[in-house]
């Protein structure tokens, strides 16, 4: 037993030889770090597929009428693009990859509370993904309902393969629930001695809040999806208007999950931002408790705003008024975060590293996304821009400019720790610059198009929209060029030499106090926590040396 203990503490997790060999050592590993990498690889693969589908959609919009695909294929394209990006990439996204890898390390634990359940979550994710994508290759054709599966079209009218993607979404939801349950238990049970709740890094706070939403919201969409399947298979009538059912009830149940899911997507990103900013500004985060509580309040209020997706679906004026009001309330904790981040940067000793550049891009894009969200949350303006390009414009600014940009920031921030290798900073910065330009070219015209009245999900358009559509399509090419540079740069770094120091950015949270890459069980000895996660002044006052090799 003793020799084994020594062994797992001195070998890094990438080189550790366990019971299994080859690929089995990965896909059967219960190590939270390896599972994080499994998610990273599978998620990136699906992201690339999603980007290609998006590219085809934009290419179709290059000219009026049919450019490369017909209307039915276009319907399948936007449905699959949505399903892949939402269920396979953004929802698992940061918690599954970086939460898995860094949550246990940041609270001073050796693994999550239920390591085997963690592996099961990844397997369920993979199985769900296969179901979700299988409709592509089966007779009947790929699903064309949009990622929202609205009834009665999804239950009665479309002849495409709906059941399998629905089952896939259910399984993915189950995977998400198990991950959430695992993280909540981990935070409650496995914090190192001295790691009180208010000494936890803000990333942990964000993942913890997210985990609660995953547990509380996902079952509702699970049952809704089961009922749509029953409706389609057996005509039970629960949602089917021809049998007396109410499709609006479907929309309610769907959005009771799917709006909180928006916060499942964005809260972890906000957590990453709260890690990167203090590290690169060499400054204690401004308003630690305000940020921690704003995560929780976003999680709670976000649960109560689903009705704003249904302003035009048929609701009483009272409901619409209340849902609109609550939607505006969510903007407050989000604003609290943005102001605290900016205040942290103020008078900081800023090091403009790649992760921080991503974060600055995020603050710009997310602010636009958030403010246009208020346009949609206000009833009068929503009626005007509802179901137009304004909506995709808004959620791409929030989801892509918010979550995915921070996903990239997180890769660049933690890459040295995960792989023990450094990437080329110059090319990383060039990539983010190109992506920022391409992103705005691609999505900003959508706001104008939507305001002019261009409806979403159409494969064709009127001549007056041509100029902006062409600009947007060219933007997609620029964006993809930036993405390609970023991915090649990172792949080259993975293949490069192990040259990353323990703490390349001078961060203070626990992951920077273990070797890069971390040993199998993270810590030689479980650390005792004596100060807050971003106490730069503690190190200055006490003249404690922390290893910062740059």
């Amino acid at each position, binding site marked *: 037993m003793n020799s084994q203990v020594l062994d797992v503490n001195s070998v890094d997790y990438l080189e550790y030889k366990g019971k299994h060999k080859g690929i089995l050592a990965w896909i059967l590993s219960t190590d939270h770090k390896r599972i994080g990498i499994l998610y990273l690889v599978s998620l990136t693969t699906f992201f690339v597929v999603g980007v290609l589908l998006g590219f085809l959609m934009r290419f179709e919009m290059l000219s009026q009428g049919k450019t490369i695909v017909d209307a039915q294929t276009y319907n399948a394209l936007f449905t699959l693009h949505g399903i892949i990006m939402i269920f396979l990439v953004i929802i698992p996204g940061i918690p599954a990859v970086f939460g898995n890898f860094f949550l246990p390390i940041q609270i001073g*634990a050796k*693994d999550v509370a239920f390591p085997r359940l963690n592996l099961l979550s990844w397997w369920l994710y993979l199985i769900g993904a296969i179901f979700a994508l299988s409709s592509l290759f089966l007779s009947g054709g790929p699903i064309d309902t949009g990622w929202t599966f609205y009834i009665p079209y999804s239950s009665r009218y479309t002849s495409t393969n709906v059941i399998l993607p629905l089952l896939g979404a259910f399984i993915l939801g189950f995977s998400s629930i198990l991950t959430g349950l695992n993280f*909540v238990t981990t935070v409650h049970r496995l914090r190192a001695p001295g790691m009180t709740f208010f000494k936890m890094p803000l990333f942990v706070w964000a993942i913890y809040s997210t985990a609660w939403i995953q547990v509380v919201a996902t*079952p509702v969409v699970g049952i809704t999806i089961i009922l749509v399947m*029953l409706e389609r298979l057996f005509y039970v*009538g629960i949602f089917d208007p021809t049998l007396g059912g109410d499709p609006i009830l479907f929309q309610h*149940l769907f959005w009771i999950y799917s709006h909180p899911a928006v916060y499942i997507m964005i809260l972890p990103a906000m957590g990453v931002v709260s890690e990167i900013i203090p590290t690169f500004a060499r400054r204690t985060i401004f308003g630690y408790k305000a940020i921690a509580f704003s995560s929780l309040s976003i999680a709670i209020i976000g649960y109560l705003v689903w009705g704003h997706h249904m302003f035009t679906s048929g609701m009483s004026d009272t409901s619409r008024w209340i849902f609109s009001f609550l939607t505006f309330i969510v903007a407050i904790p989000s604003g609290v975060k943005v102001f605290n981040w900016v205040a942290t940067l103020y008078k900081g000793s800023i090091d403009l590293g790649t992760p921080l550049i991503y974060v600055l891009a995020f603050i710009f894009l997310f602010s636009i996304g958030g403010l246009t969200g208020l346009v949609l949350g206000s009833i009068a303006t929503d009626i005007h821009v509802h179901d137009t390009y304004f909506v995709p414009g808004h959620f791409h600014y929030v989801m892509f400019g918010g979550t995915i940009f921070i996903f990239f920031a997180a890769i660049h921030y933690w890459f040295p720790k995960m792989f023990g290798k450094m990437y080329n900073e110059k090319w990383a910065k060039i990539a983010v610059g190109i992506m920022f330009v391409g992103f705005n070219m691609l999505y900003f015209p959508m706001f104008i198009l939507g305001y002019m009245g261009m409806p979403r999900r159409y494969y064709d358009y009127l001549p007056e929209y041509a100029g902006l559509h062409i600009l947007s399509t060219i933007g997609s090419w620029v964006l993809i060029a930036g993405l390609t540079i970023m991915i090649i740069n990172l792949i080259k770094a993975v293949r490069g030499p192990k040259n990353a120091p323990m703490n390349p950015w001078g961060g203070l949270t626990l992951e920077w106090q273990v070797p890069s890459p971390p040993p199998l069980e993270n810590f030689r000895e479980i650390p005792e926590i004596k100060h807050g996660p971003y106490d730069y002044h503690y190190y200055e006052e006490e003249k404690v040396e922390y290893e910062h090799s740059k």
Partner: protein
Amino acid sequence: MSTASELQNTEHLTGGHAHIHRDDVGAKLGMWLFLFTEVLLFGGMFLLYMAYRLEYTFEFQISAKELDMALGTVNTLILLTSSLTMALSIAAIQRNKKTLSLIFIIATISLALAFLVNKYFEWSAKFHHGIYPGATELAEKSNGEIIFFGLYYAMTGLHGLHVLIGIVVLLFMLVFVARNKITADNYMKLENSGLYWHLVDLIWIFLFPLFYLLH
């Protein structure tokens, strides 16, 4: 290897092996969170039931009379008794009475099977009368009645699936107890299975009056 008292110690953090550690409090916390998600899963359906009951009050009252109250009552008694045997099997293993615990687990499984057999006869009688989703006889009835039976099949069906899963889980527990994987000082698996079983029971306690008794 470690003694039992060391195993009970949840301060595993200082121990050598983190990968498979034992934390009874954590296991129970995880189980409660899972049960919470189950409540929400059924909660969505109870919400639908409420909405449609308000819309189709009269039709729901007519339809409820077509369900067999006697069979429903018997099934309620069966499930309540199975919760008792489940609790007794945990009490038995806590007192280190392995055989007794095994007997009570087998009793629980048998009662669960009896519940499903009853349910099978109940459903097939309804099928025989053409009361099932998509049937022509049902299609001739009013919308409210169609939805009542749609909900009836969906909710009792999902509940039945949970009973089936419960049986599988209990079969595993049977093996664990028989092979001394579950013992007097390591019985969290059995206790968590018990929690799950009580939840399945509890959901039926709500389904029974909503479908059979509210006339």
